[in-house]
């Protein structure tokens, strides 16, 4: 089973990297882009020892304590039981 964790800056936090990318893609000529926010994406392979509920709880705890800094970032966990 794989867990996907998306970590993004909170909307209230300025994202200079996203801004630079936004500016770059506009300059290159991509149209219709209103905003770009950059984040982090983690793929975690979970061994079979935990139930899906336990795995989700464990991954969410890890995301909150380690992968994201709750002062500046939000996170979102997806569990993919097919892979």
């Amino acid at each position, binding site marked *: 089973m794989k867990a996907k964790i998306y970590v993004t800056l909170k909307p209230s*936090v300025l994202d200079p990297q996203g801004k630079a990318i936004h500016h770059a893609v506009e300059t290159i000529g991509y149209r219709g882009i209103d905003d770009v926010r950059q984040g982090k994406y983690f793929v975690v392979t979970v061994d079979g020892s935990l139930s899906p509920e336990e795995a989700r709880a464990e991954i969410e705890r890890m995301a909150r304590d380690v992968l994201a*800094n709750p*002062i500046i970032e939000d996170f979102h966990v997806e569990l993919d039981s097919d892979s």
Partner: protein
Amino acid sequence: MKFGVVMFPGSNCDHDTYHVISKVIGQPVDFIWHRQNTVADCDAVILPGGFSYGDYLRTGAIARFSPVMGAVKEFASRGGLVMGICNGFQILCEAGLLPGALLRNQNLRFICDHVNIRIEATDTPFTNRCQRGQVLSVPIAHGDGNYFCDVETLAELQSENRIIFRYSDADGDFTTDANPNGSLDNIAGICNRERNVMGMMPHPERASEQLLGSADGRIIFYSLADTLAELAKAS
């Protein structure tokens, strides 16, 4: 009285800091290895600059889980003096010993330059030898020094006089130009509510000998030494 300088894998200002404490201000100092779960007999602990654990994930994010940080937290909760310089400041924020976080510099560049910082509070163990409004010339060297916190925390830092250093021009004015990294309210250093834990992005240890271009930074170490001497006398 004894100073302790923590060594994380990836610390690179540990020896500079040790040198300034032992050779410039002439005080006893020991290294504290990151795997130690005690700060031993140290009376002040310094988390030096560098790139602890490669700064993977976020600056300071992994360092805060190292065994020594449990000891540093316990030491701080007993009123022990803790100072974080650059990466050390980032670690203290990640560890929750100081509020807020250090974001990527607004201009996205790693900045290595001399800057001016103005002393905003002298009622701390780290700045008691300074004058309020005094301007120090000290270097910065960081890619993530853009101080951020929420509105409530900023109001608290301001009203409790916990902003210790602000980036300024040479005359002590807080211009936008003098803010190298986009920090909120030109913040270069803050302390906790109890005023025994302080973090700063500039490097006073790199400005403690005139040979290196400025000796302004050593007043921070002298202040700390004065505080420890007072504490020793009182006990």
